[in-house]
């Protein structure tokens, strides 16, 4: 059953910051961070948005969380259109939908004790107050593996390691018993030896609490371990979307192929032949190439690719790809 649906989501950031600058510049220019993205997430799923820096995956996450307003498009969450919700209504939705961010050092208020940070959401949403809230907060601290909860409760974030902080952030996210978690690069800054432990925690919570994840990451190897479905983004668009095992085993889009091939493998004997791509992703997608936005780097680009933008279409059941030549390759 569908929990979240995103339809043709668009977010442009104007390049001219101030009013005067806008007034003085003849042609408006925008960073087209998210440029028409559609997908849906089923309940209980781990849906991964993957892609390189600047592809728009984080912006998509923030749009879904309603932390920024979309330029156009629609977000339907739990059967309700939340695109234009404001104030009290938006707060009601927020209870059901929580983020876990990449940087555990920045996502906790340095002036708030761990316990308070976890307890606070309960009070904001009027779920529990005072000692009752504290009780619940302690429960959740234990749940994310911060034991003894008593000790951690009165510590400040600065007294914790990165992994521990990320656990606090997770506890804060799940304390209101949401149904949906947006995990934005949630394990990217965690050391290898601990990364698996956070991933395991996330999976365990998913089972216990029946959570649905939108997992945003640039680490394909990590994505592979947890995703049920994956969408690969390039310059603000999804280029390929499908069940994780299908996409990882037989990627269809040349970009996905290159991306997969570039991921290093911890095996000295597997020094594989890589798909070679020219150039890099532009740092700020301002001047998007016409036609297929990947064509300047694509080794298989044809005249058609330069002219016409391919649409995301089903190439095989449930496996969508946006490439004119997906079938031929």
């Amino acid at each position, binding site marked *: 059953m569908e929990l979240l649906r995103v339809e043709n989501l668009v977010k442009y950031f104007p*390049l*001219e*910051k*101030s009013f*005067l*600058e806008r007034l*003085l*510049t003849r042609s408006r220019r925008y960073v087209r961070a998210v440029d028409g993205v559609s997908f849906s997430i089923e309940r209980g799923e781990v849906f991964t948005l993957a892609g390189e820096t600047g592809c728009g995956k984080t912006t998509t996450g923030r749009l879904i969380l309603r932390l920024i307003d979309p330029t156009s498009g629609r977000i339907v969450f739990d059967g309700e259109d939340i695109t234009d919700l404001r104030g009290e209504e938006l707060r009601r939705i927020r209870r059901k939908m929580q983020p876990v961010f990449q940087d555990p050092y920045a996502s906790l208020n340095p002036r708030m004790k761990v316990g308070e940070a976890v307890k606070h959401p309960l009070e904001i949403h009027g779920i529990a107050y005072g000692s009752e809230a504290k009780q619940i907060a302690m429960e959740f601290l234990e749940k994310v593996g911060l034991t003894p909860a008593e000790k951690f409760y009165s510590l400040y974030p600065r007294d914790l390691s990165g992994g521990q902080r990320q656990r606090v952030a997770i506890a804060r996210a799940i304390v209101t018993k949401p149904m949906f978690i947006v995990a934005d690069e949630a394990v990217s800054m965690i050391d290898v030896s601990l990364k698996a432990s956070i991933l395991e925690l996330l999976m365990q919570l998913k089972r216990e609490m029946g959570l649905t994840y939108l997992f945003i990451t640039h680490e394909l190897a990590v994505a592979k371990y947890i995703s049920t479905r994956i969408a690969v983004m390039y310059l603000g668009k999804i280029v390929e979307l499908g069940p994780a095992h299908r996409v990882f085993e037989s990627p269809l889009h040349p970009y996905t192929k290159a991306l997969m091939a570039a991921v290093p493998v911890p095996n000295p004997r597997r020094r594989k032949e890589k798909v070679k791509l020219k150039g890099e992703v532009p740092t700020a997608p301002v001047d998007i190439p016409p036609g297929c936005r990947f064509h300047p780097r694509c080794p298989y680009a044809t005249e058609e690719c330069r002219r016409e933008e391919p649409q995301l279409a089903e190439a095989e059941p449930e496996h969508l790809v946006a490439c004119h030549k997906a079938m031929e390759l």
Partner: protein
Amino acid sequence: MVSLRVYILTRVLLTIPMVFILLSLVFFVMRILPGDPVIAIVGMKASPEHIERLRHELGLDKPLWRQYIDYIAMIMRGDLGRSMIWGKRPVSTEIWDRFPATLELTICAFTVSVLIGLVTGVFASTKPGTKADVGLRLFSIVAYSLFIPLLGMLLQFTLGVKLKLLPVAGRKSPLVQIDRITGLYLLDSLLTLNLVGFVDALRYLLLPSITLGVVLSGVYTRLVRSSMLEVLREDFIRALRARGIPEGQILLRHALKNAFIPVLTMMGLQFSLLLAGAILTETTFSWPGMGTFLLERIEYRDYTTVQGTIVFYALLVAMVSLIVDIIYAYIDPRIRY
């Protein structure tokens, strides 16, 4: 990136509201509070009729909003009006008479303070934590805290009166003549090849500009030091060292230039410090500049002159910050491209 042209244009346009805000502030505060220029002009004994006539002449009998609009309209035409008190000279002429003195003083003081600041700041930053560094930090704190009149008096007393090395007040010797071209005596005497005039003007300039310069050098020492330390901590300095670039070259060609960007930004703001300090310096050294002029005219509630002076100060500050921005853009390619 927004183009440089738009950037500079934006900055130019932003100076307008700034001048406008300050002008309005002064305009209304001055008129709401007691103190009447007409009475100050005519002195004690004028008849009420005479005073009324004068008020009318000066437009002071109109409602406040009307006066304000008239004044703004006048400013828009680039006219600062005429002084309300003796002479009734155009305010622009009055300013033009005094401003070069202030400009000369501030430029020289600025030079002194930047020279001291650069040398001490760079030196301190290369030896953080040493005695020399701590000493220079103390210097910067104490220098800035030296009350300008106190330091000025001290220098006047020792160098001027006791040692008779330098003249203590005024801009030049009575017997020396310097033809006015720009009003900057140093420049004018050079332009007219008047060596005696040049040396004389310079001698008169020394004490005030040293006083102001030393006090402000504290700011620069601190600024240069901290921004050098900041830059020296950066990755590219380490990378330069790793590439075996000689230390001196790293310091002067890379670190100093990078450190100069925040220093430059601050310089724009410090300029207002310079102007403020100039008031006390001018008072202490009888320097016939804008500061002493403003003080005198405030006392007489010379509305137009005070307003004009404030507008001028505001324009000056805005212009300096604009120039700083342009230099900034010139030095920092990240803004230029």
